[in-house]
């Protein structure tokens, strides 16, 4: 029930709602719980509400670290 997934903001409306996209599916999302959201931001969506922004820099850094770790595995075998 607490499942919350990252989605990309593709449309912003005046009333602090917007449209977000995940795997080509679009969802109406209430954006009133987060500050200063912009187009192309990634947000974590739960029960129709964005509850926090995804820090892209941090996420990319982490993914890089995982790739580097994967490399060490390939070298081992």
């Amino acid at each position, binding site marked *: *029930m*607490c*499942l*919350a*997934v*990252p989605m990309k903001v593709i449309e912003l409306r005046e009333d602090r709602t917007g449209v977000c996209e*995940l*795997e080509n599916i679009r969802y109406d999302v*209430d954006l*009133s*719980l*987060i*500050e200063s959201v912009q187009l192309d931001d*990634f947000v*974590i969506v*739960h*029960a*129709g*509400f964005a*509850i*926090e*922004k*995804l*820090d892209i820099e*941090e*996420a990319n850094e*982490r*993914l890089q670290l*995982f*790739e580097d*770790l*994967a490399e*060490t*595995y*390939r070298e081992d075998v």
Partner: protein
Amino acid sequence: MKYIDGFRNHRTARVITEEIHELAEQAGDARLMEVCGSHTMSIARYGIRKILPRSVRLISGPGCPVCVTDAAYIDAAVELAGKGIHVATFGDMLKVPGSSGTLAGARSEGAHIHVCYSPLDALRIAAENPSEQVVFLAIGFETTIPPVISILKRAAAQNIQNVSILTAFKLVPPALEALADDRDVAVNGFLLPPHVSAIIGAGAYRGFVRDYRLPGVIAGFEPLDILLGVRDLLQQLAEGKAELVNQYERVVREQGNRIALALMDHYLKTADASWRGIGTIPGSGLVLREEFLNYDATVKFGVSVQGGKPDMRCRCGDVLRGIIFPDECPLFNTECTPVSPVGPCMVSSEGSCAAYFKYSR
């Protein structure tokens, strides 16, 4: 999607698993508890228990809000539905057994039960049916509370008066303290819930980790996130440390979500709460403040959420505290299955018994 798939890389998982095995030798026996339904599902779905060393036991704690909802609460919801009131709820609640009936049963007898994807759906139903009363079943942890409370703010703005909520909100930090105090649970460290933490912030756990000297790691729910969380916990145990680590910095900030926290504080105050199978935990719930009792379904319709009688054979309480595994319950996969659940842990896909049923047999 990169921000999902990237956290499921097999080779990286192998490297971290090797590290876990090395650390486990130094850490000794470890009972690590997660208190997040998404963790419970991921751990079962990706078979994470099977790749961990024997000395490391992952316990699925009370992380599924549906599973810890009292039988009396279901009874109240069924009673409301019986009065002809529209009951709007997340779908997981339909099959949860109360003292005698379920909401699914009430629906098959013609009650107005609406399954919602978002609490906003309840507001829409109320606006569309101005002569009817609509009650939203307001269960959930800190992740879900702000979205639910948001509808009250909107209802006031749009002057919608025929909507109210039946609250059974639960708070994670007081539950952690109760679990840490419980000798039967004997937990050595916590894998902390990602999206609850997004709301309350990493800072909310610092006092707990220090006072109880138990390591805690905030981890996402993708497989690599969980493995890293386990690794960090074992590393701390091996080194004799007890610290709070935020492995989910891509979402969780130190102070949490200020807008959400302010909204909760405006409408709600803490209260004792009863957790199914576990009992009453002081200060572990949130209820509406006096000035908002016009939105409280118990006040508005005179129903009570006290004194239900769950099926006493269900051992959810022991499952949620890691005292038994689901398949050690005599009813597991005999009388109790996801199609016909006896206890709440078998209902939601995030419930320990349901996750175990689906992936571990």
